């Protein structure tokens, strides 16, 4: 376990040596500073009054969740895009000739090595997003003098979504020793396939008369991780205190993650370097 932690720490160090994570951290800080400036000029009671006047009776908790999500939703998407890009080279770098030889010559198992690389990558994204989320939460909670901790759970959903995408990067990194393919597949699933399958299943499937085509969409929907649902309804429900309303996207995505990790670990354990 100690070896896994050492590799995880080395991965975090590697991540922060890259400008992408520093850029996102700096962007988070900028957003937080702008928020402090903006909210210091606003009166909380007047804000609640004007929102209610416009759209009916919203509780203070709902208003706070909406304000928090207004900041977090676009930034978490950006964080995931940047994180996929920055983390895609973690495994290929580790597998470079001269580096992997050294790591494998140490008393650490191959499973521990790959696990450390995986947890390190996930941890660095969690730290990055947590700084932003805790900052947004503190600013809004202080402003409204209302403390609801459920918003902090959104950091877990975003990290989980990244963990799913990172498992793809890890697997293709181990197989190809290159960052390009894994990154492209992760982006394809996150930006195109997952939203498309969700829309296909919910909106187009009822219009399709062919049973086989409908079944195909269903099969693909269940196999492919539901990053789109995780980052939309999953994130909103958790952040606004409703908890996990539908477990299916979480469970099927977790299964996908475990399968990817399993294949990656198996492939790595059999590979010659």
């Amino acid at each position, binding site marked *: 376990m100690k070896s896994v932690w*050492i590799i995880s720490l080395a991965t975090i160090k590697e991540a922060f040596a890259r400008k992408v994570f520093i850029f996102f951290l700096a962007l988070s800080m900028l957003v937080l500073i702008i928020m402090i400036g903006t909210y210091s000029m606003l009166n909380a009671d007047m804000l609640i009054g004007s929102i209610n006047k416009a759209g009916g009776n919203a509780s203070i908790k709902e208003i706070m969740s909406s304000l928090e999500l207004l900041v977090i939703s676009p930034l978490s998407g950006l964080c995931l895009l940047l994180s996929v890009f920055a983390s895609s080279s973690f495994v290929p*770098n580790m597998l470079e*000739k*001269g580096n992997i030889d050294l790591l*494998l*010559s*140490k*008393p650490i198992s191959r499973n521990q090595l790959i696990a450390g690389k995986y947890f390190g990558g996930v941890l660095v994204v969690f730290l990055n997003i947590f700084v932003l989320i805790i900052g947004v939460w503190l600013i809004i909670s202080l402003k409204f003098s209302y403390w609801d901790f459920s918003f902090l759970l959104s950091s877990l959903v975003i990290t989980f979504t990244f963990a799913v995408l990172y498992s793809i990067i890890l697997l293709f990194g181990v197989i190809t020793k290159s960052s390009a393919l894994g990154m492209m597949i992760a982006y394809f699933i996150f930006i195109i396939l997952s939203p498309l399958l969700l829309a296909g299943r919910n909106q187009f499937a009822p219009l399709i008369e062919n049973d086989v085509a409908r079944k195909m969409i269903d099969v693909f929907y269940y196999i492919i991780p539901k990053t789109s649902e995780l980052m939309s309804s999953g994130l909103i429900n958790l952040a606004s205190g409703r908890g996990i309303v539908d477990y299916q996207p979480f469970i099927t995505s977790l299964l996908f993650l475990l399968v990817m990790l399993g294949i990656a670990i198996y492939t790595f354990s*059999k590979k010659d370097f």
Partner: protein
Amino acid sequence: MNVIETSSLGKVYSSNFGKKNVNALQELSLTIERGQIFGLLGPNGAGKTTLIKILLGITFQTSGTATVLGSELKNYHFKNKVGYLPENHKYPSYLNAHQVLKLFGNLSGKGGAELEKKIDELLALVNLLQWKKTKVKSFSKGMMQRLGLAQALVNDPDLIFLDEPTDGVDPIGRKEIRDLLFNLKSQNKTIFLNSHLLSEVELISDRVGILSKGRLLREGNVKELTERKQEFEILTENFIDEIYLQQSDGIKIDKHEGEVISVRVNSLPDLNSFIDQLRGKNIIIKSIRPLRTSLEDLFISVIKESEGGNLK
């Protein structure tokens, strides 16, 4: 106790979906005892690095068995007593010399004040103490090699694998590395050395192996391997006239230049009778030494012989 033991070790690399097979190692059986410096020689692609990689679990053997420090290769815990300097080693460029040694020391199970002390000692030993906090990306090839050597020693290993340790190091640095290896040997450490610098291997190794196309062609004590059987050089105090030198059945004079005679004898009693013959003529003998071939000559002849189809 044998530090390394291999039995019929083989490695086949397959490419093009198994259509093309390369035998990187074939039926390699080798034993290395504690406290020895073993030099493995071979042309490029002979399988030297493959052997080290198999022994360290970086590559898997296709056939045969091996143990390192009494452990089977699948049990990775033996590696906490092993150091390794790979050829063309690479360290994360964002780390400095101290951080590199700390990372690999930690991975070897070392830590705390003891590791910090060891890091300083090693950096001083390889003349890098003043570069302790310098990022390794700005290091020269020689500096990287010296850092690699420190890295290989950070866990105070009993067995050290060095793959071309003097690559890119200047002559003074080479001498320092040689001295360091002798020092490690005096501490009963075992050193497995891969090098194509034959003169260097000859200087420091107790035993050598010659590998070609995955086969171990010759293996043994350096002195024994390089000894020219029953050939001696006799140095006398005074010039010897040709008429004093009589060849007999067991003695053949190969060379005679002034006070130096090179003879080939059938047996040691023949040599002694030849010396008696000289002494009988009041010739003063200053020294008698067995003639040796250089490791380089031996290497070339063994490789040529193998290419001619006669192995061993």
